[in-house]
């Protein structure tokens, strides 16, 4: 799987994660506010990173930090959906926990001079 295929698949994952709740909200004529559009952007980023990491399954499936990152990203997307359906922006603060975790992993791996961010 080359770089273009990985990017295409990740973008497709992000689009699917972002558009599923949007289609639901529009179909059932629920109110759509700025909070909902913000959630769509957050869900796109979450879905993109989730698919990007999930495509590396063969390399990292034995690492605890990798499995935890995937699980946290799923929880993050779920929190984003909660914020979109109930129009509560603070749900996105919970959703950001997974991103912060992945950024911390990357920073720690960089500081230790490791080749990949999934240290354990």
């Amino acid at each position: 799987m080359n770089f273009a295929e990985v990017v295409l698949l990740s973008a497709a994952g992000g689009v699917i994660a972002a558009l599923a709740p949007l289609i639901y909200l529009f179909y059932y004529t629920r109110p759509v506010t700025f909070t909902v559009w913000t959630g769509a952007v957050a869900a796109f980023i979450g879905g993109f990173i989730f698919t990007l990491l999930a495509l590396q399954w063969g390399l990292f499936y034995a690492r605890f930090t990798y499995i935890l990152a995937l699980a946290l990203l799923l929880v993050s997307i779920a929190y984003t959906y909660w914020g979109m359906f109930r129009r509560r922006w603070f749900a996105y603060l919970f959703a950001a926990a997974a991103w912060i975790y992945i950024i911390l992993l990357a920073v720690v791996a960089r500081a230790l001079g490791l080749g990949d961010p999934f240290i354990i």
Partner: protein
Amino acid sequence: MNWVALLVGVAAGMAVAFGRVYAERLVARYFGLVPPLLFKHRDVVVPFLVLATAANVYAIWITVAYGGIAAWRLSALIGLALTAAAQLVQLHIALRPTNRDLQLALISCTPYVYLFALYVAALATGRYSLWLF
């Protein structure tokens, strides 16, 4: 089985379906009504747009990847043209919601019938290629 074509097709189909519900909301707001009153068959049309666009993307991948276009087979060219026409009709369904949605959706299924007929004919005649003529 090409997962890239399948997932990209589903994402494109969801984009088309989102365009449909967005257009429904705009039209309904213009007439001061709710969409379910105005569009009776939206429960069929919205999932149809997702599946049909995914099928179109996959059909184009089949036509291009298995050498039909490279060999200039007429059957492959017809398949590609039918798929492109179906995609145009489905975009019209999505962006201009009317009361003829179901008829247009039925008409836009011709490439799938055509490709399935090619598949059955290739199986029946024992040919190794989908592009029979």
